[in-house]
């Protein structure tokens, strides 16, 4: 190979590498990004069983059921609709009735949302941002309630 050919092959290799990395990144974004929904959104959005989403809202009053062992059932609501959720594990310290939560997981075939992670707010003063925005958009929560 001449000097020029060598240089060209190095550059081509580099570009091929960058191209592969870019392709992989966009593929992964399409496949692995999980969308955020509030319960009422689920009537319009088509979420397949097994598709990973984040479901946010308030923990509905009187729905927390501590079953056998470490499985907990509760409903997440945006005051219009509510969705049953089950979760096995330790709930966050600030998990309480009528508090904002974000759960992440998939819908089972029976329509119950099986969460593998539950996030509550970090601090007594905050509401998870996505939940707060969603509730504001639905007109059920005002900024003034945050304090």
């Amino acid at each position, binding site marked *: 190979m001449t000097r020029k050919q060598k240089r060209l092959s190095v550059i081509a290799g580099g570009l091929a590498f960058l191209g592969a990395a870019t392709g*992989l990144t966009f593929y992964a*974004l399409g496949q692995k990004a999980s969308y955020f929904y509030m319960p009422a959104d689920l009537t319009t959005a088509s979420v397949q069983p097994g598709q990973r989403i*984040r479901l946010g809202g308030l923990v509905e009053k009187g729905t927390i059921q501590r079953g056998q*062992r*470490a499985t907990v059932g509760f409903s997440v609501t945006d005051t219009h609709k509510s969705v049953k959720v089950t979760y*096995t594990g*330790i709930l966050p310290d600030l998990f309480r009735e009528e508090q904002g939560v974000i759960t*992440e997981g998939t819908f089972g075939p029976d329509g119950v949302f099986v969460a593998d992670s539950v996030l509550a707010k970090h601090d007594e003063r905050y509401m998870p941002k996505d939940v707060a925005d969603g509730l504001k958009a639905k007109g059920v929560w005002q900024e003034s309630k945050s304090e």
Partner: protein
Amino acid sequence: MVETGHFALVLAFALSLVQTLVPLFGARLNNQRLMAVGGPVAVTGFALTALSFVALASAYASSDFSVASVWENSHSLQPLIYKITGTWGNHEGSMLLWVLILTFFGALVAAFGSNLPATLRANVLAVQGAIGAAFFLFILATSNPFIRLNPAPIEGRDLNPILQDLGLAIHPPFLYLGYVGFSICFSFSVAALIEGRIDASWARWVRPWTLVAWMFLTGGIAMGSYWAYYELGWGGFWFWDPVENASFMPWLSGTALLHSAIVMEKRSALKIWTLLLAILTFSMSLLGTFLVRSGVLTSVHAFATDPTRGVFILCILTLFIGGSLALFALRASRLTAGGLFHPISREGALVLNNLFLTTATATVLVGTLYPLAVEAFSADKISVGAPFFNLTFGPLMVPLLLVVPFGPLLAWKRGDVFAVAQRLMVAFAAALLATLVTALFIDGASVFAALGVGLAVWLILGALTDLAVKSGFGNVAPGILVRRLLRLPRSVYGTAFAHLGLGLTTLGIVGTLCFGTEKILSMHAGETVELSGHTVRFVGLYPAQGPNYSEDRGRFELIGVSGSPVGEISSAKRFYPVREMTTTESGIRTIGLSQLYLSLGDEGNDGSVVVRLWWKPLVTLIWGGGLVMMAGAAMSLMDRRLRVGAPSRRRKQVIALKSVGQP
């Protein structure tokens, strides 16, 4: 004292403007006296910022609730250590720490940069001053920590309980020393662009600053990871949380910078690339500051959400990143490009390193910003988490880690891959053996686990092979070998230790992810549970009272082979009444390099408690590897060539005397 601090901060802002303008014009007019203003002003600016910081810290230490920031983030019952660390456990105070470190680095350049060419030094200090001015203005205009309350409240609102931990004493200062340390590399780059001149000695000046920043950033990230691991009670060491990514991006590009600066220094190639990388690395630091401090992300780190702050930092971000890149576009063509080189060589390997690391940085950047972009341009809200990064970052890292041992063994200019491969035979055989042993005897189910262990062993032994080859192991008598080992340049040890640390961290990650086990169950007092050969008995829940919290402490006993207890583990649910906040204190017992991790959940109706138990093999290596990497950076910093420096001070003085002598 508080007003003194406030006044000092305003004065420091004014001085930062002087530091920006006077040396800059001095360098332009080639006026020695104007240029000489930069040094003393930088040192004074640092002293004033330090005074301001001490004033705030003392307000925190003495629980002066007439200061709004103290009232919001402190409480009189807090232990003194948390009162002091609480100084930077909030938005205002942490920004003050940010500028304190920024001016500290500026003062270091002023103090130790006496052998720099006068115009370069003046320009560096000017750019440093400009960054300082922007952030001083930001603090004074939107995040003033010295605002008073009248009437003063009697009691404070307590520091966020999650932050009431020793981690707060170490993690933010280290992280900022890293983040902000890269500002020096940025200033050097912009100064070089202003002058339109760059040479190998430039790299010799920039490299130690990169090393210092990188060392602290490594420590800060490792500490943050360990803190999240034990404090959040989730047992994870890395969550691919946007805030974590914000600190990881400058680390990745900083690592690339560290390597490309070597090529520039030794071979005087990759000049323009190194300069661009220095700008990009600090841009990542600024972006990180923006992401964390603007409130666009919700996290433990986002102390408050105030849109004006976000917009302000965004303006700073645009000004500095945009400005420096525009300057780069204008001036880069004027800089002389370095020489070309053979792809199979040390510099070729370092270019490969840069290719992988910058691509990895870009991947993390896309994953971090994509949700923000989607939310800005559509109604959808998405989150990009671990599955995305495992799919993109993982495949990028594996080939990079595979070639790491080759790099330091390849010769400059023209390397011989086969000769290097021969030298690495032992490491390769051991890695292969480790893979087979793992697959056959420990866990045959997971191919990834076996390959992961092999990769880690390859990295660790590869780093040791580097030392062995360079000291002539096997060819010389033991006495000579020891002498040669002692005589090796410290930078060789630096490389070997940094790569060794990388191997150890890899081993820790593979061990924890692939061989870790966990159990979630509800336990009554007296019950035992067995996990991966360790038996734990739940003794019971005991209420206790802390200085500013009450807790239910769950006591557990580790049962030995004989059936008698060999140690205690305790995990607690703490309640902080001021913030009405509950936290979980995890119980951790270190056994060898591994840890048994225990976290307490809710109490059931029948008196049982939900317990989550993890066995985390080799987990301590994750952070131990980080410490070894830091040690590597420290050794490299002590290298002779960095201590001696390029143009000796005496020659410089002679030139200075001559120039003084001339009218």
